[in-house]
């Protein structure tokens, strides 16, 4: 049995090598010789094949007997999907990877592990700010030449720069999200005779129409603070503009700024109207993100008609409800607020190496490759900034369109603000921005109070 497995594995590697050599003639000689050889010379064939228009020219070292630990925040369908990528990596290299979910307080989880001397080999950081924090502490290992080659080949500069800090490239933004969209239950919309709104004022009117039909309009997952920060960021980016957005993200302007007041007041138009929130503010506060999605797409009438969150909602819909994405569940772009443009806020998980060694680098190389993106994309609920990825890999039109618009936006997007902030402010359960916006959800009339609290917490976390 053991021998057989070993043989199939060699056959597979051989097959991969043959198919690679068909495209890149130079690779044939070293590929047949063995993986050690191939590893050393791999950079040459890679560039050769990329010049010839891409293809399966990915060279991964032989990692038989090596154990790799990968930590990320994903659970449920997102985790299952990623597992497929890891399985493929195991198959190609012979390594044994295990997935460790980090939970919401990611920097805490990883920080303790690193300080305890047992970090995972590779971690996916959900917060850009944490990348900076960890890099400053010297916990991250810069990308090796193979991973760097894949990265430069497949990713636009905007995404590459997000994974760099102080001139060194640390991470690969392999899985990103478009956080500027609102999902709706098509049955509830057609029952109410509502149409997709383009502006915030239309959006409120649509919500009102939906309410009149007897369906609660908007589902908010207020038990998870990050959904609230995403609401705020979209409104702020559209209303105050990208320049102010960057300033606030870097805490160069204070949270007591009038622009923040405007954004919170706008958000209060929704949060303050108990008719428009499914379950009212208290109900919203007790609803976590998965529930906020599920309740929008189950039952007749559903518990809500619309739910705001990023593209990964589609994976939750497919996995946890009977609704079909594209027919029962559709999305429209986050409406433009005031005179501003419709926002494009994106987030993402950046893969970084926490340990030296070929294993971590090989995994990052694979993650940055188009092969991995293709496997990942097929499961749905996944969006890749990898521009070499064929859009046909996405499972449905909804996902394909989101991906298309993201690639088309090029570098014209803004990264999630709370994810750029220090973890204490933008990424810790029950603290900082998460907690302050939860308080605001319960009491949307107190804009000034919310601003003061946000500023106090921000000042503490940014240390300024």
């Amino acid at each position, binding site marked *: 049995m053991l021998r057989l497995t070993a043989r199939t594995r060699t056959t597979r590697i051989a097959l991969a090598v043959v198919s690679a050599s068909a495209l890149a003639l130079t690779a044939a000689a070293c590929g047949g010789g063995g993986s050690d050889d191939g590893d050393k010379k791999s950079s040459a064939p890679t560039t050769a094949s990329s010049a010839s228009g891409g293809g399966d020219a990915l060279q991964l070292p032989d990692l038989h007997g090596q154990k790799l630990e990968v930590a990320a925040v994903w659970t449920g369908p997102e985790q299952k999907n990623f597992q497929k990528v890891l399985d493929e990596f195991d198959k190609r290299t012979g390594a044994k990877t295990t997935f460790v979910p980090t939970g919401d307080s990611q920097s805490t989880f990883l920080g303790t592990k690193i300080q305890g001397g047992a970090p995972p080999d590779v971690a996916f950081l959900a917060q850009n700010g944490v990348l900076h924090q960890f890099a400053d502490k010297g916990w991250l290992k810069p990308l090796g030449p193979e991973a760097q080659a894949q990265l430069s080949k497949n990713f636009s500069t905007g995404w590459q720069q997000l994974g760099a800090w102080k001139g060194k490239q640390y991470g690969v933004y392999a899985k990103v999200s478009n956080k500027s969209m609102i999902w709706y239950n098509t049955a509830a919309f057609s029952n109410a005779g509502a149409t997709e709104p383009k502006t915030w004022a239309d959006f409120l009117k649509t919500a009102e*129409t939906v309410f009149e039909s007897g369906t609660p309009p908007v589902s908010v997952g207020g038990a998870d603070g990050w959904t609230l920060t995403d609401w705020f960021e979209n409104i702020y980016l559209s209303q105050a503009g990208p320049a102010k957005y960057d300033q606030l993200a870097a805490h160069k302007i204070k949270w007591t700024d009038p622009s923040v007041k405007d954004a919170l007041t706008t958000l209060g138009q929704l949060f303050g109207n108990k008719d428009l929130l499914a379950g009212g503010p208290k109900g919203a506060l007790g609803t976590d993100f998965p529930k906020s999605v599920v309740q929008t797409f189950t039952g007749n009438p559903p518990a809500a008609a619309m739910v705001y969150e990023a593209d990964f909602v589609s994976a939750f819909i497919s996995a946890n409800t009977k609704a079909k994405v594209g027919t029962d569940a559709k999305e429209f772009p986050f409406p433009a607020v005031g005179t501003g443009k419709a926002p494009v806020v994106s987030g993402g998980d950046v893969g970084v190496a926490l340990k030296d060694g070929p294993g971590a680098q090989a995994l990052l190389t694979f993650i940055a490759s188009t092969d991995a993106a293709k496997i990942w994309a097929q499961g749905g609920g996944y969006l890749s900034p990898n521009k070499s990825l064929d859009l046909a890999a996405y499972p449905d039109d909804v996902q394909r369109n989101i991906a298309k618009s993201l690639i088309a936006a090029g570098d014209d997007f803004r990264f999630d603000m709370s994810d750029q902030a220090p973890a204490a402010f933008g990424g810790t359960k029950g*603290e900082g921005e998460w907690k302050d916006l939860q308080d605001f959800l319960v009491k949307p009339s107190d804009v000034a109070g919310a601003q003061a609290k946000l500023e106090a917490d921000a000042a503490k*976390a940014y240390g300024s």
Partner: protein
Amino acid sequence: MAPAQVAGATAGAGGGGSSAAAAPPPGPGKGSGPRRSVMGTRPWVAAVFLLPALVLLGALVAYPIVYTIKRSLYDADGSAFIGLKNFGTVFSDHGILTAVRNNVVWVVVAPTVATALGLVFAVLTEKVRWGTVFKLIVFMPMAISMLAAGIIFRLVYEQDPSQGVANAVVVAVHDTFTDNAAYPGARPRPNSDLAPSAGGSFTSKSAAAAGTPADLPLVGIPQNKVPAGAQDARPASPQPGVVTGTVWLDFRPGGTGKPGVIDPGEKALSGVKVQAVKDGKVVASAKSGKDGTYKLPAAAVGAQLRLPASNFSGKYEGINWLGPSLVTPSIIASYIWMWAGFAMVLIAAGLAGVPRELMEQARVDGANEWQVFRRITVPLLAPVLVVVTVTLMINVLKIFDLVYIIAPSSSQQNANVLALQLYLSSFGGGDDQGVGSAIGVILLLLVLPVMIFNIRRLRREGRR
């Protein structure tokens, strides 16, 4: 780990050194042979026997305490000495002050109530035939880990009555005594003649006239919440001298109906209370019939029509157990659920040692059961009660798991206690182990007096 070993090694070396120094070769000057202690052992033998315990205590107790105290005087990185600044932070941070206040509540309430309940259980079970079974059941929660108990109570306190037992009971009791509104959550169509008035009711702007039907359009009722068999709404026939009109659901699927007009297919709403109000006084009142029409007597002519709030009042949602104001009492209750059994078992053991004659004597002398309990049992049990209370106090000062698990992130800060804040400050995003250590030192200082009291009491007892 390395410093610990060093500390252990030095402790061991110190022990060895002192034994060497304390056991000089038989000195010619003394002439009394090798010096021996009272117990008749050589000091170095004693030291050898004490060594393992000393090493363990030094490495696991003394060294961490000393290191924590030292660490509390350094900044977040542990590189710069900052004196008592961390303690200043502790006493100026409002979050930490909440933790201190909650700890006081915990220490006062939890041990007292748990001991009192334990005492009652112990005394009562003595007299019941099935006492052992009862004791077993009360003691059972002690066999559950804090983590599991926390998860159980997280579910018990769930807001949704269909999930949380606590609210299921509260809602069931509440609904037995109050009637539910006919159409919860509904309200008149905006921009109609009805405007919101005091207490959630809606009042018409114009005065009702005899002969012209006053129709009252309502919206916001799901189609499946309209009672089965509801008739289509019918315009009320004008009648001289009385006020008539129709109450109906002014909505047709697909939003095809005209606002304010009784379109064919729109459903009548029966059982809606309509009041006629003149100068703030209700002069007449009626309920809408099967076809939605209502008829008010002549007295209503010229009055304003009002739909009282009882038509729409939302469903009773139960108590918000884990909301900001109740979260600490709720968690304390779960703690008492766990630890009352512990108190009961200790007190029952103490009770077994109490001389029966005294109680018999008192009863013979004509004391009633309360007097026996109050004047004989409790004073005799006092030493046990003190032990139990003090043990629980020490335990409660360190409470962490229940609070961490039960409190949802939105009210975690309201439920904060010192041990949780210690964890959050050290690892929860802020990553300031200086402040964390300072809280640890404060906790130690708080536990010390209780410990000293306990030790002194034990000594006194030993001398007796």
